[in-house]
């Protein structure tokens, strides 16, 4: 998985609780991305980063925030988890335009 780790790999949480997912890379790639994967929707971009402290919204950013204080770490936070945020979350990294490499994913269940 191209030097990308995600933690936790599985999480069950209750509606209304905050949740933070972590993506860690050892490749020193500039770009980092958070996607969610749901049946029938493919992968949809939540947020992305083009450098330390530089982030922007993707197509499904409502209810999510991100932070990148170091090149290697990109955090995704659900401020108040809802059942609609039950999904598999993937982090990806990129250095060359268009070529993204994905982590192993985090399965999040919100009850």
């Amino acid at each position, binding site marked *: *998985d191209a030097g*990308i780790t995600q933690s936790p790999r599985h999480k069950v949480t209750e509606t209304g609780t905050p949740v933070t997912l972590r993506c860690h890379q050892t490749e020193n790639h500039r*770009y980092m*991305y958070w996607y969610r994967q749901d049946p*029938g*929707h*493919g*992968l*949809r*971009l939540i947020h*992305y980063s*083009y450098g330390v402290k530089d982030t*922007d919204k*993707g197509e499904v950013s409502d209810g999510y925030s991100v932070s990148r204080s170091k090149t290697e770490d990109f955090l995704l936070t659900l401020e108040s988890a809802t059942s609609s945020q039950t999904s598999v979350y*993937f982090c*990806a990294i*990129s250095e060359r*335009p*268009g*070529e*993204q*490499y*994905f*982590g*192993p*994913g985090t399965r999040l269940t919100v009850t």
Partner: protein
Amino acid sequence: QQQVKQSPQSLIVQKGGIPIINCAYENTAFDYFPWYQQFPGKGPALLIAIRPDVSEKKEGRFTISFNKSAKQFSLHIMDSQPGDSATYFCAASNTGTASKLTFGTGTRLQVTL
């Protein structure tokens, strides 16, 4: 808004057959078209990619055909094997905008013996 449309949703072929997966895009600013392969429980893996200045690209048993005027591209898997059974996603990117990828909805391929 679905900017990359992928078909079929699922596909079953016999070993040795040539499955074809099709994608169509709308945004003419897209300039990079990758395909990803995903096995259950794993993250998507970059398989092969093409830029619009060529009409075909081959890597091993995988071929992308690209039709710029029709805004369509397709993945062909030659001599398919049971180990190719996976979900395949097409994607498109405007590499000038932080290389964000827009994905198709995926095709679940099953290769039978």
